[in-house]
């Protein structure tokens, strides 16, 4: 039996640290790049769990497709940095800010509660080392996917189609003064307030 504990802690540490930095970053572009690093570490964990198919899919679909979509949007929107507290205090105006800091405290407390609660609940069954032999072959996964889960697979294709059409409809820019079929028309697209 090989020493799998060392790569586990390595990949786990990379995943946790990269995820923390995603949250700590103020610039969205660095957040996206760090999240790709976190997904790479998770992919290594999937390899350790004898799931090479999931590991490869994680790299190709998540790090390759979804994160590139995020990168495109961040760059498309010119990646405005998040305002610091000083900026917000300077242009304070009428917006109440105390609720926001209270929300942050609530979020951190909720996160700490989740660590304790989920860790406690999930490990109650006392899982030790993994017994039995793993299912690693892609053929076995594909067989199960196209027989037992065939209906769910087909529903998924409909979901993707609906999401695609929805994304096009939502991000569609109305021609100025043109005939708007949906939404509130493109004639009032000026800067708000």
């Amino acid at each position, binding site marked *: *039996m090989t*020493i*799998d*504990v060392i790569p*586990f802690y390595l990949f*786990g540490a990379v995943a*946790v640290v990269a995820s*923390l930095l*995603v*949250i700590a970053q103020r610039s*969205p572009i660095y*957040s*996206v790049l760090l*999240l790709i690093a*976190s997904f790479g570490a*998770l992919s290594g*964990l999937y390899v*350790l769990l004898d799931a090479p198919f*999931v590991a490869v*899919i994680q790299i190709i*679909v998540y790090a390759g497709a*979804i994160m590139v*979509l*995020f990168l495109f*949007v961040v760059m*498309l*929107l010119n990646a405005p940095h*998040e*305002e610091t507290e000083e900026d917000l205090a300077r242009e304070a105006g009428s*917006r109440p800010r105390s609720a*926001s800091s209270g929300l*942050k405290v609530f*979020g*951190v407390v*909720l*996160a*700490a509660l*989740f*660590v304790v609660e*989920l*860790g406690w609940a999930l*490990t109650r069954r006392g*899982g*030790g*080392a*993994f*017994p039995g032999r*793993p*299912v690693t072959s892609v053929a076995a996964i594909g067989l*199960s996917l196209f027989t037992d*889960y065939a209906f*769910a697979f087909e529903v*998924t294709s409909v*979901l*993707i189609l*609906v999401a695609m059409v929805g*994304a096009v409809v*939502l*991000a569609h820019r109305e021609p100025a003064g043109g005939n708007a079929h949906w939404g509130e028309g493109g004639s009032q697209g000026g800067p*708000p307030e």
Partner: protein
Amino acid sequence: MNGMPTLDQYLVLSAILFAIGTAGVFVRRNVITILLSIEIMLNAVNLTFVAFGRALGSSDGQIIVFFVMTVAAAEAAVGLAIVIALFRHRQSLDPDTFTLLKW
């Protein structure tokens, strides 16, 4: 501590990642970062699925991960389209400025 990591270690790691994602949703004031935090949470759940599937010796965990990734892709596409539409109207990514439905 000898040999392979246990199921408990994977589950605790997954709980930590999920909590980081939860904290991110509340702490950040940028819609894109909030969406990224949701992706962190989805991945933590994926790790749980694969770990349990490995512990039970079945392939169902990996198949569920496949479906979760598909839903995550759909969610990212629609969510980012909404972000683009919101940015076009408000010129901001701060969720506190999206108060049209508030009264």
